[in-house]
C-alpha cells in the first residue's frame, strides 16, 4: 500500500485514490480505513439484500399482480388486491383480532414486566434465579411450547382446568370455545414474552443513577411519587423500545395460533384468525401470492405507522 499522503487534501492527485481523497477531503490513511470497513460490510450487505431487502421489495411488487403460485399467467392488476382487501371479511376479521391480541399482549406484558422488574430491582434474595425462571420461556422454542400449552388448556385433561376445579370452576373449553380461545392465546403469549420485557426493563431500571433517588428522598419523596417522577421518566427510552418491539412482535403473531388451531381438538379458526395466519393461508394454502403480498404490505404499513406514532407520542411527552 502506498504511503499515505502527508497533506490532508491533495487537489491534483495523480492516482484514483488521490482523486477520491481529494473529492472526500480525506487523507489516504482514512481512505484505506473506509475501504476496509466498506469491503468488510459488503458480504453482510449482500446477504441482507438477498434475504431481507429483495424479498420485501418483491413483496411490494407482487402485491400489484394477480400472482398465483402455480398458474403461468400472472396479470398486473394495479391496486385491485388492495381494493379487495377492504371488502374481505376474513382480512378485516384478522385485522380486528390481531389488533385486539396486540393491545392486550403488549399492555399486559409491559405492565407485568415492569412490575416484575421493579420487584427484582430491589434487594430481593435469589434475584438471578427469579430472572432465569422468568426468562426461560423466551429461550424455549415456540412450537413445542404451543403444543405444551395446548395440553395445559385441554378441557378434560388440562392442568389449568384441574387447578380451577379446586375452586369449584366447571371445565372451560379454553381452546374450543370461540369466546375464550383468544384469551387462551393471549395468556400463552404473555407468558412467552414477559421475561424478555422484564429483563430489558430491569436493565433500564438499574441504569438509573442512585443519586436521583437519594436527592428525591432528601426532598421527602417516596414510593409511588418517586416511581412516577423519577423512574418512569428516566425509563422512557427503554420503555419505548419494549413497547415498539412488543407491538411489532404481537402484530406478527402466527406460530402459536397455527399450532393451536390444528386438529380436531384444536381452537376454532375464525376467532383466532390473525393477519399472518391469513397471509399464510392465502399464500401457501390457496397459492394467491399477489393477494397475500398485499396483505403483507398492509401489515408492514400498520406496524410502521404504529411504531412512528409511539415514537412521536413518547417524544412529545418527553419534550
Amino acid at each position: 500500500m502506498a504511503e499515505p499522503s502527508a497533506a490532508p487534501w491533495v487537489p491534483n492527485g495523480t492516482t484514483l485514490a488521490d482523486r477520491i481523497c481529494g473529492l472526500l477531503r480525506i487523507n489516504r490513511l482514512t481512505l484505506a480505513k473506509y475501504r476496509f470497513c466498506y469491503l468488510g460490510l459488503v458480504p453482510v450487505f449482500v446477504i441482507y439484500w438477498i434475504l431481507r431487502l429483495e424479498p420485501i421489495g418483491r413483496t411490494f411488487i407482487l402485491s400489484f399482480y394477480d400472482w398465483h403460485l402455480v398458474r403461468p399467467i400472472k396479470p398486473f392488476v394495479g391496486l385491485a388486491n388492495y381494493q379487495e382487501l377492504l371488502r374481505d371479511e376474513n382480512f378485516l376479521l384478522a385485522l380486528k383480532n390481531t389488533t385486539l391480541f396486540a393491545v392486550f399482549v403488549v399492555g399486559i406484558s409491559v405492565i407485568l414486566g415492569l412490575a416484575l422488574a421493579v420487584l427484582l430491582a430491589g434487594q430481593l434474595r435469589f434475584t438471578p434465579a427469579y430472572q432465569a425462571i422468568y426468562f426461560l420461556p423466551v429461550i424455549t422454542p415456540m412450537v413445542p411450547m404451543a403444543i405444551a400449552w395446548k395440553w395445559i388448556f385441554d378441557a378434560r385433561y388440562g392442568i389449568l382446568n384441574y387447578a380451577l376445579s379446586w375452586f369449584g370452576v366447571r371445565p372451560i373449553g379454553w381452546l374450543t370455545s370461540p369466546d375464550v380461545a383468544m384469551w387462551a392465546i393471549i395468556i400463552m403469549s404473555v407468558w412467552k414474552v414477559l421475561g424478555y420485557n422484564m429483563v430489558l426493563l430491569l436493565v433500564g431500571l438499574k441504569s438509573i443513577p442512585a443519586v436521583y433517588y437519594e436527592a428525591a428522598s432528601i426532598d421527602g419523596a417516596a414510593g409511588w411519587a418517586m416511581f412516577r417522577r423519577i423512574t418512569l421518566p428516566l425509563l422512557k427510552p427503554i420503555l419505548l423500545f419494549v413497547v415498539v418491539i412488543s407491538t411489532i412482535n404481537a402484530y406478527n403473531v402466527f406460530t402459536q395460533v397455527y399450532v393451536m388451531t390444528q386438529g380436531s381438538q384444536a381452537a376454532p379458526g375464525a376467532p383466532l384468525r390473525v393477519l399472518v395466519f391469513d397471509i399464510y393461508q392465502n399464500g401457501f394454502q390457496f397459492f394467491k401470492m399477489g393477494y397475500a403480498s398485499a396483505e403483507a404490505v398492509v401489515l408492514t404499513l400498520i406496524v410502521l405507522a404504529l411504531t412512528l406514532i409511539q415514537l412521536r407520542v413518547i417524544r412529545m411527552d418527553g419534550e
Partner: protein
Amino acid sequence: MRKLLRSGKTGAPGTTRRMFLKQVGAAGLTAAAAPVLRPRVSMAAAPVTLSLWTGYPELEPFYKKAAEEYAKTHSGFKLEALSSQLREMEQKLTAAIPTDTGPDVFDIGRNISLVFADAGLLPPNPPKVMSLVKSKAYHPVVVEYNTWKGQVYGIPFQEGSKPALFYNTKMFTEAGLDPNKPPTTFDELMAAARKLAKKDAPGNLVRAGLSLRLSGQGSGVAEKWWYVLHAMGGDIVVQTKSGKWHNGYDNEAGRAALKFYIDAVHKYQVDDTKLPHDAAAFASEQAAMLMREAWVIGELKAKGPKVQYATVAVPRAKRWGGMTQPWSLYVTRNTKYPDVAWDFAMFLVSPPMAILHLQMTGWTSMRQDVDWTPILKETPQFKPFLVWDKGRGQYTEPAIPVFDELETKLAERLVTAYADKSLMDKPDGIAKRIKEMAAQTDDLLKKAGLYGTN
C-alpha cells in the same frame, strides 16, 4: 409425442401455427424413426432409479416394499421415496412442479393436482394408463373426479375420504341397543347417540354419544358436515346446466344439516367441544359413535385393541351416499423415464398391491375389481369401505380449483355456528347463518368467474 406431453401445451390456446407444425413434424419424425431408434428392451433392463414423493409418511414403507416386488420382474429398478407431512409436501410440490425439479412420481390430493393440470404442468394419462382408468376397475364417479377439461390425470390410488359409521358394540349392548341393528337413518343415529351419551354427577358429558367434528381450522369440518348435508339432499356447491356453479346448501337441506349439529351439541348434548374427539376419543372409549375413514381401523388396532366395535355405512335421510375423494398417483413431465414411471404407478394400484397397501397402511384402494375376501375375513370392519351396497351412491368434490378455499372458509363459519347455543330451536337463526355462509361461497365462486344460477 413425449415432448408434446412434456410441454403441457397440447391444444393450449396459446399454441401458434408454427409451433404446432414444428411439434407435429417432430412427432412424425419420432414416430417414423421409433422402430429403428428405440431399443426394444424390457422396461427396466438398464438400471432405473425413480424418485417418489408422498404427503403421507405411513405410505413410505408400502412404497418401498412395492418397489422390491416390482424389482423382482424389472431388474435394475430402484425407488427413492421421500415423505413429509401433507402440507409440507403440498408446498414442496408447488415449488417443484412448475420448475420441473420434482420427482418422477408423486401422490397428492386433487386440490393440488387440479391446479397443476389447470396450469398445463401435468401430463395427462397416456393411452395405456387410460385403458386401465376407464376400465371397470374404477367407478365412473372416480374417473370423473380425475378429469379436468376433458383430460384424465393420474391413477386413482387410495380413498382419501370415504367415511363409515364406527360404533362401539359393547356400549350399544349396555345402552339397550342391538349392535346388530346399527342406525340406518340420521334420526335413528341421533336417537342412538342420546342413549349412548353419558354424563357424570355434576352433569358434565363424559362420553359422547356421537363424536362430531366441532372445532379446529381447515376444510375437514365442512367435509364432515357434508356427510349430513348430502344425506339431507344438499351439496356444498351445485353445477347449473350452463356449467356454472352456486352454493347448494342455502335450502332446507342446509338448514337441516346445521340443525342436526346444533341439536347434537346443545339440545340433546350428545357431544361437547370439551371432550376429546376423533379416533383418539373412540379408541379411549370416550365416544360411542364416530363417522370416519378406514384408517381409523389401523389406529384402533394400535391404540385401542380392546375396543369392541363394528362399522356400517353412513346413515341415510332423503338420500344415501358416501363421499369419495380419490388420492391419485401422478407422473411428472420432467421424468427421464415416463414409461417406467407410469408402469410402476400402474403396478402400485394392481390388485395384489392394493391388498398389500391396505394391510400395511390401513388406507383402502379405489379399485372395485379386487377380491377383498381375505381382508374381510380378518377384519370385517373394512366392509362398508370396500363393498358398496346397492342403492348407496357416491358423491365427490367438484372439479373447481377454488373449492378448497370455499370449503375451508365455510368450515370456519360452521365452527362458530356450532358453538352458538342461541341457535337452538331457532329456525330463523339457523336460516340466517346458512344464508351468510352461502353468500360467502357464492362470492368466492364469483371471484373465480364460476358463479351462475342458470
